[in-house]
């Protein structure tokens, strides 16, 4: 369990935004090579609050507002990182990365390899993901799969503030480029209608959560539901609904997509025999397919039924509320996926 059982007396509940800012501040205090740059990260403290307080503590030299020049500052991050700095770079929505993608996937992510491992590029990219509040097709995507697909960068997507802090500290200390993708609906910004379960106890002292270690956030024996970020909360809600029907669901929070903890997923599916993968990213060529393929490749015989996916349909995200809500994954869709799996069960189901 990531958020852990903590004595209520010393509870310190933080939003993901504050947990991220705290982790950054703690690393900046001990490591002068860490600095932050991006649009509106300075006095505004980040559009989604994850750099709040940093400008006041560290000043404009280490917390730099940039022009809207992503190609320049993503490239600059690569250069600064290769020269001994540890830049943390914010680009507020993942949807905006198209304008500077080359600097990331062709340089930042490949330079270590091109140099035979002699050049390190310790950059952390921070960006928001997700929709649900009618922000339209250029401000609501997740694109987890897009970044996870390309080799050379690690991909982090926390579901709660405890993980958010530990994963941020680990990201900053990692010698490789990391993209840290936080979901807008978990960020703890009231104006985005936040998921309350993401705001949890966060210890004050610094700690890391190792990459590539999924968390079993709910134990169960009948079906495994695998997800990240907002999907984990949908999965937990679905697990409650399934429990009411007498079905015991295990929920796996991947926490990092690269590296991917295939072992934990496989062990869980070996136990339950049934798999549903939930993703707010697009259905095809993405995380859902990757998880199912991992099981199929290793040992198909652990499956008692065809795995199911609950993902975003392969459409641009519609603005209008009824259409967007129709397209989003939800606990109800996870239940439907379970029923469908049951309807199609073969001889192995029991």
């Amino acid at each position, binding site marked *: 369990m990531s958020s852990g059982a903590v004595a209520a007396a010393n509870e310190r509940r933080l939003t993901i935004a504050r947990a991220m800012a705290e982790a950054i501040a703690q690393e900046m205090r001990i490591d002068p090579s860490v600095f932050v740059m991006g*649009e*509106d990260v*300075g*006095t*505004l403290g980040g*559009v989604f609050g994850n750099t709040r307080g940093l400008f006041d503590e560290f000043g404009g030299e280490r917390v730099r*507002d*940039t*022009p*809207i*020049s*992503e*190609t*320049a500052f993503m490239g600059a991050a690569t250069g600064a990182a290769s020269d001994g700095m540890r830049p943390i770079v914010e680009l507020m929505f993942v*949807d*905006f990365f*198209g*304008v*500077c993608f080359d600097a990331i996937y062709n340089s930042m992510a490949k330079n270590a390899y091109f140099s035979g491992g002699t050049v390190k590029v310790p950059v952390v990219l921070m960006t928001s993901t997700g929709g*649900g*509040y*009618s*922000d*339209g*097709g*250029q*401000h609501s995507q997740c694109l987890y799969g897009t970044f996870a697909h390309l080799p050379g960068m690690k991909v982090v997507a926390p579901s709660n503030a405890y993980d958010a802090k530990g994963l941020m500290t680990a990201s900053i200390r990692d010698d490789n480029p990391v993209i840290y993708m936080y979901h807008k609906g978990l960020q703890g910004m*009231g*104006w*985005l*209608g936040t998921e309350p379960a993401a705001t949890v106890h966060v210890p004050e002292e610094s700690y890391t959560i190792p990459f590539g270690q999924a968390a079993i956030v709910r134990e169960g024996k009948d079906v495994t539901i695998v997800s990240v970020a907002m999907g984990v909360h949908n999965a937990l809600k679905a697990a409650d609904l399934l429990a009411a029907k007498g079905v015991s669901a295990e929920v796996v929070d991947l926490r990092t997509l690269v590296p991917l903890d295939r072992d934990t997923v496989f062990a869980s599916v070996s136990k339950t025999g049934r798999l549903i993968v939930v993703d707010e990213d697009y259905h095809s060529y993405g995380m859902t397919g990757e998880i199912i393929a991992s099981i199929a490749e290793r040992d198909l015989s652990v499956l008692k039924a065809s795995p199911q996916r609950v993902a975003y*349909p*392969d*459409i*641009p995200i*519609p*603005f*209008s*509320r*009824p*259409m*967007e*809500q*129709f*397209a989003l994954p939800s606990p109800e869709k996870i239940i439907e996926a379970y029923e469908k799996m049951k309807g199609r069960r073969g001889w192995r189901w029991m």
Partner: protein
Amino acid sequence: MYETMLVSRFFEEAIEAIYLEGKKPVFNMAKGPIPGEMHLSNGQEPCAVGVCAHLTSSDIVTSTHRPHHAAIAKGVDLARMAAEIFGKKTGLSGGRGGHMHIFDPDVNFSCSGIIAQGMGPAVGAALSRKMQGRDGVAVSYIGEGAANQGAFHETLNLAALWKLPVIFVIEDNAWGISVAKSASTAIPNNALRASAYGMPGHHVTGNDPIAIFAAAGEAIALARSGGGPSLIDIETDRLAGHFMGDAEAYRPKGELEALRARDPIPAFARRLQSEDALSDADLAAISDRARSKVDDAIGFARESAYPEPDEALDKVFV
């Protein structure tokens, strides 16, 4: 031009009021009849009307995340635009696009919420007109923040190189969200950049529709006569927050009040009275006409039905 400025302002005021329905006391973007982000254009109307007054429906305009004033000045169907902003089935895209994605091919208007990404399409439309031997100019609106985007520099060079009939219009409202122009741009005015790409640069101060009209007239005449692109840099004022819900703590004290005191709409009205001898009654009649256009459009949007949820799956391909 005055009437169009009023339509634009009344439209934004109506959208602002409706946007806040369901968002009080707790501001949550997901709630109310108009959810999502909302970027209003109050104060920037002169940039829209001063340029678009020279255009016909066959000319092309590409706009930004802050598109309503330009859309109105270009003649986008007001009722269907309002319905789009509400996410209704009768909207320009049936509710698929929303406020940052206004597309009206009948008047060749489109926009993108990604900074500077309307620029390439404007250049391409101008290229298309040139290659097809068809008349028409393309106008690309951007903010001063977008002038630091790679696309700005690439498109200016391309348009000048190929001598395309395109006009780049910078609406310099001095702010890119919370970042002041002085903190993002190394030179005082972006019109200076025009010479680096081999095109005329106009710098227009005072947020004055007549001065903008004059500069745009020159640039558009040049483009229409085969003389290639121009850059028009306009100092304007953003009288609203970056988006609805913006606390605007980054603004220096008193700035907003000072900007409101020089609101271009009353200033234009005073000028029409003194220079063109329009009476109070004339102005009131214009205002009434503008108001009723907006009321009709908003009424249409309110009454229209939402799309069926599964219409989300249509129109991915055509």
